[in-house]
């Protein structure tokens, strides 16, 4: 539960910053290509996005794991859910990190 609560509190704070960043200008303007790319080129913000990505992936897939374990029990089932959640977490973090890295390094 400590992981779930810790990631929740961290994510709430950082997602608030992420949303406030969108509100520094008109919402549709903030989504313009050059503005989004500029966000990724700003290193502190890119690092924050990476942290948000990790926190939300861990929180989200741990939550899904808890729901699925509450639904059904059994050694093989629980092992599959535990390892499946970790694999999904890693895959999502890897895919999101790829975007942050490539956009941040101007590889788009």
């Amino acid at each position: 539960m400590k992981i779930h609560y810790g990631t929740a509190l961290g994510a709430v704070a950082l997602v608030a910053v992420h949303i406030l960043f969108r509100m520094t200008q008109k919402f549709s303007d903030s989504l313009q290509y050059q503005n989004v790319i500029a966000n990724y080129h700003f290193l502190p913000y890119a690092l924050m996005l990476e942290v948000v990505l990790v926190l939300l992936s861990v929180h989200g897939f741990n939550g899904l794991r808890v729901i699925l374990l509450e639904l059904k029990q059994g050694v093989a089932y629980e092992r599959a859910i535990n390892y499946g959640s970790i694999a999904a977490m890693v895959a999502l973090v890897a895919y999101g990190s790829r975007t942050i890295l490539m956009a941040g390094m101007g590889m788009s």
Partner: protein
Amino acid sequence: MAERLSNREGIKGMANPTRYGIERVAYWLQRLSGLGLLAYLIGHIYETSSIVDGRVAWEKMLELTQTPQGHIILTIVIGMCVYHTANGVRVMLGHGGVGVGRPGQPEYPYKAASLNYKQRLCIWVSIALAALAMMYGAAVLFGD
């Protein structure tokens, strides 16, 4: 064995928000909003990944998401996010023993001290905050 299995409702039992009052509804909404937010997170990460394919791909993706339907989905996501956060803080505090009352001798009609008016009020406040955030979000998204 047959009796044990007949008591097992499985996913139907989990998906049923009734029978146990507002606390059960709060639990159900927390689970539902959590699943919705996870689906949104995956979609959002996929959506933003189009930026690495250049301006044209990004603008194509925006054409798909910046529509009235997209704004309605985003408004629902805002509501889910605010409810999940506010109710999650309530659950966290309750887990830490805040606002759940003092333990005492069970007395008729055996009302659980932890399911008191403070907890119920917090659930309603969470729902109200989510509704307000949705209204604000919709005003920003559709007013753009």
